[in-house]
């Protein structure tokens, strides 16, 4: 295996789940998430020589988000709506979780999925991927102040919606 590929796999592979998680929450579709991540990893590999250190996770997630945006644009050109095959099925089952907790989680899952996209993405990046405000601002291409207000709105909306299951 050539060195460039080895370095790419060593650095990018640990973040494949993060890439997939973001794609999944953005597209709300397992099929689309697969395509988006595959496309993103290929673009990342081709652009890898241009990546000069820094945070590879933030770099990869930026590419994932861009791929999701262009996939959405392509779908719209074909006359489909990008939310057509959205599904809110239960996440992978956790044997240690009781049915009640699983129900609460599933509801929370569905509530996140229903947040407007600009709120959903900052919430996922902050709460699931532990990204800093600066990194979220870079990934989503908005100023830090906007990240802060969107995060506050996302949390307030979710708290309100999830009042019963928290």
């Amino acid at each position, binding site marked *: 295996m050539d060195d460039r590929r080895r370095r790419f*796999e060593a650095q990018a*592979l640990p973040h494949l789940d993060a890439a*997939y998680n973001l794609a999944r929450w953005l597209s709300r579709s397992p099929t689309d998430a697969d395509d988006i991540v*595959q496309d993103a990893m290929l673009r990342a*590999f081709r652009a890898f020589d241009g990546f000069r250190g820094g945070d590879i996770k933030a770099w990869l997630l930026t590419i994932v988000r861009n791929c999701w945006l262009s996939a959405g644009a392509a779908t719209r050109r074909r006359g489909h709506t990008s939310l057509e095959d959205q599904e809110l099925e239960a996440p992978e089952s956790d044997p240690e979780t009781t049915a009640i*907790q699983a129900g609460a989680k599933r509801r*929370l899952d569905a509530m*996140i999925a229903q947040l407007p996209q600009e709120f959903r993405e900052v919430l996922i990046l902050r709460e699931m991927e532990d990204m800093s405000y600066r990194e979220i601002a870079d990934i989503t291409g908005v100023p830090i102040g906007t990240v802060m207000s969107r995060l506050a709105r996302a949390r307030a909306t979710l708290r309100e919606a*999830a009042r019963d299951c928290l």
Partner: protein
Amino acid sequence: MNCTEILHTQSYLDGELDGAEAATAERHLETCAECQALAAATADLSDALRKVPRHRAPDTLRHRLTKQLDRETRRTPAKSFWVGAASGGGLSALAAGFALFLLLPPTAASLSQSVVDAHTAALTSQKTIMVASSSHHTVKPWLAAHAGISPPVTDFTEQGFVLTGGRTDEVAGNRAAVAVYRHGNHEVDLFAWPDRGTKLPEPGMARGFRMTFWKSGDLDYAAVSDVDAAAFQKFVALAKNQRE
């Protein structure tokens, strides 16, 4: 929502502030009921969100990626790492896990490993404390004398983390000062060692312990514990914002 400081408080809770800004936010939080309510609600929400399982990349996707990268590099390796990682069989999954460990940036991987090793070794030997004291006036000079560095030491009893003592330990070949705290039945270790420009690992979990690393002044810090996410975040925020 009437408080004009609410976004500032949120930044503080998210660990985005340090130094004077954090101190200002902390003072405000002490007196503002609205921000206190926000702090409690945000912690509850974070805790609930961290229990929502992250979607994991399916094996089929890893297979497709391998094939795609093979085409891209125009060379087909006998068995690439992606295939090993994706095959899911007991032995190859083990091998893939091992390969992943080897392939991680050595500094980050060995630091995480080293901190968890030190923490678990201390727990299992029950020698977590070399100097027992709930007073930072005792622990801080002891650490300075025995570890050769003098990180800030603060008792956070009022915030739920009781300072129980300190010890010296070793992190990736460096002598480290450890302040030891208790939270309910859980121990929280706060490691500090001289910053040698090493890139620190991302926050994460290893063997059931949460870890967060950061730099401050000329020291590298790591907090490690098996407390829940909300408590851990609270501790990290406190530890990051303590004053010399």
